[in-house]
């Protein structure tokens, strides 16, 4: 996502550089729990950041979810130096609470949720929040799937409580689950592999699947639909021209028609029936997926988001 938005800024004619923290991931996990090593690690991160800022001299620093922009003193220093600070919090605020510590220090705080999150942001003194939904990366590498075997129904993702709950009453017709940690749960027994699926591979699965199940994550086992944000998977599946069944989201209709471009349902029972229906109706399935793709290319790529950001920043 970081690379996607970086490229998008460049595509719209902005000078943009990227500080990729993915190389630090291993060390982050290794130093957890060891206070001294952890302090050294964060110092290293800070130095990397300061070096980048000193070298590139940006007008704007744009952080995305979980990027290590949480040192308040450093943020204040950047601000003092006239740098505009932006953060794209592309997480569920109910699950990841670190926004409470950082949001007020940013000039622009972009969210994938609106109220009641915005009300909570206001309560902690962050008033420059803006809705910025997820998007599809048109530059992403996508595997060729023409000769590959089709997967009837699939899900790619993590075993959040609601998914474990619903998938334990799994779909028939060859439902397959891909992702890490699923084997820890006795049910459902439809897991293929038990490892993190890299984006490239996930895109291949999406494209090979006749029906993609896109059940948004929830910490509550019985929760199906009714949540607000639209996850990245919705945009990715749509952008790849892959057919999806999703749980209904409050913000979905701002981006997709829940009957024409994706099929948004309000219960697991309906989702199971719909999956079975669409396996039998290829033309209808393809027409819906084609419309979704067209919609993404028209308004939901990272380029569109970069343009929206720049418009909000007034530059």
């Amino acid at each position, binding site marked *: 996502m970081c690379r996607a938005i970086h490229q998008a800024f460049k595509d719209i004619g902005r000078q943009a550089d990227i500080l990729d923290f993915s190389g630090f991931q291993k060390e982050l996990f290794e130093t957890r729990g060891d206070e001294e090593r952890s302090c050294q690690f964060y110092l290293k991160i800070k130095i990397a950041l300061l070096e980048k800022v000193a070298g590139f001299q940006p007008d704007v620093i744009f952080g995305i979810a979980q990027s290590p922009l949480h040192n308040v003193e450093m943020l204040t220093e950047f601000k003092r130096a006239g740098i505009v600070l932006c953060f794209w919090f592309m997480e569920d605020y109910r699950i990841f609470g670190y926004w409470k510590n950082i949001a007020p220090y940013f000039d622009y705080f972009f969210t994938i949720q609106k109220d009641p999150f915005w009300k909570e942001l206001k309560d902690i003194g962050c008033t420059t929040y803006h809705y910025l939904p997820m998007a599809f990366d048109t530059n992403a590498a996508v595997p060729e799937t023409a000769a590959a075997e089709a997967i009837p129904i699939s899900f790619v993702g993590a075993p959040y409580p609601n998914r474990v709950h619903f998938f334990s009453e799994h779909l028939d017709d060859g439902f397959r689950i891909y992702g890490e940690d699923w084997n820890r749960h006795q049910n459902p027994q439809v897991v293929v592999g038990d490892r993190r699926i890299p984006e490239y591979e996930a895109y291949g699965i999406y494209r090979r699947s006749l029906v993609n199940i896109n059940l948004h994550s929830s910490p509550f086992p019985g929760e199906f639909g*009714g949540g607000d944000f639209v996850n990245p998977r919705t945009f990715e599946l749509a952008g790849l021209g892959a057919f999806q069944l999703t749980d209904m989201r409050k913000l979905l209709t701002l981006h997709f028609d829940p009957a024409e471009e994706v099929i948004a349902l*309000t219960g697991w*029972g309906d989702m199971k029936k*719909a999956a079975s229906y669409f396996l039998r109706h290829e033309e209808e399935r393809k027409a819906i997926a084609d419309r979704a793709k067209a919609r993404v290319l028209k308004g939901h790529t990272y380029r569109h988001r970069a343009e929206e950001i720049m418009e909000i920043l007034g530059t």
Partner: protein
Amino acid sequence: MPHKKFLIIHLSRLGDMIQSLPAVKLLKEEHPESEITYFALEDFCVPLRGIPWIDTLVAVPSSDIKGISTEDTEIDVEAFDRLFQRNPELSTQYDVLINMTHNRGSSYLSQRIKAREKRGRIFSKENEIVMAGNWGKYLFAVARNRSDNLLNLVDLYTGMAGVRNRPVECYLPTDPSIDRQCLDLLKEQGFDADRLAVGFQLGASKSLRTWPPERFSRLGELLGERLDAQIILFGSEHERELADQFHKSAPFAFIDLIGGTTLTNLPSFLKCVKVLVSNDTGPMHIAAAVGTKVVGIFMSTAYFRITGPYGAGHIAIQSNYPCSPCLDSTVCALPLCGRSILPEAALAGVKSALGMEVGPMDAGNGADLYKSDFGGNGTLLYRRLGGENDHFLSWLRSYHDTKAWVSQTLWNKWLGLEQDFGVPPFSGDGGEMAGILQDYQKACLSYGKLYAQGKAACRNIISEFRKPRPRREFIQEMVVRIEQTEEDIKNLEGPLAILRDIHELYSTETEFCNFPRLAHEFINKYDKLAEVILCFENRSDQIRRSLCVH
């Protein structure tokens, strides 16, 4: 028939109140010597004045009800004290109290009023909803599971009133002199009594339940072209903006009554039109109550099965969006479902309401049309017109219809309604129906198992307490098992969602006491619910056999 005193509490909006009138009429028919007191909001109960089957109408101003008509946990006791002081009728002793309002304040009120028997939402415990009577429980459970129910709110109120469900006509009498005045007023504005008159109610209580005015305008155009109809706009002054939008896009002349009617004369005005095309609103129910045919448009949170116009021959147009109907808590940021209902669908609806041949419908896949009639057991039933399932949206609607048909067939006995098997509404292949029945049977099995599990744990507790030295750890283990059973029931998926909610309501009736008495209370609850399951299993067997015969 012994003299009985009934009190009906209805502190809701206009539409719900009008939908309670058939029940009141039937109550008076069954208890002609009885005295019926109706307690309602002054703003909405104007049309109820002079209704012969209401003996005493107690109309309270909205200002008096502030802090009372609420879901707030904190009860404003002083506000209730004032209400009792101002309305001596509330201090009378009643035989039967029927609370048709769905909020916490009214349930507290119901608790304070003296009555030998109470039905509906009754306040009895802190932070818990107690619904007295099977009908009350069913109504409450259905509010969250509307797709599984076929009964109209009128029939649910009738059941709550304890009278036999049967068709009711003309339950809102009008004053002939006002009827004449309204007709004269319309004539002054160019109304032609010899031409077909179709009314449009453009607004609704919430904007998301409002069909776009340009769709109404296109419908008006079609009605003029095809049926030479004259159009009359209804609505309050608040709906002026919608009327302006309508005006801008309407290339034909129409009579504009926006802001020109009152609740006193609206019933008479609505009698002047042959058909009213309306969003789900109070005026829609008034039109049905005075005998005018209605074409109701349902989208977003509105759902025709519950709040469709009451009476035979009305049309409901329901959005087919897969997320429709939504709940207040799940409404989306930009509802698109209203746009899925095409003017052509509404035209077909008007034609059908007038008894005309509709022919092949070009109504799109975004909506389905239903026509009302009375079933063999006296309840209102909407049947789908057309019935093609060649698109996912109509297929899904049809699937829901069949599921609701099965569900209703299962619940009817519990509600004391005669079985009315009729023909299942599903026009797909028999495999779908078999699948639905199988789902229900699987669900019955799951509930049955859990109830048996819960009962076994309760019995163990009881027999342990009979021992001279009951083992504390063992009892603790059984309590955990009961808790787990309750949790499992709460999380059960499948088609018996109404039962799941009714289970919750039974739980609120469980007396707060210690073990082993509490174990008896739980056994009592599980027994009652296991009986429901047994009844369901027998019914689904019957359905399967009857389908085999067909």
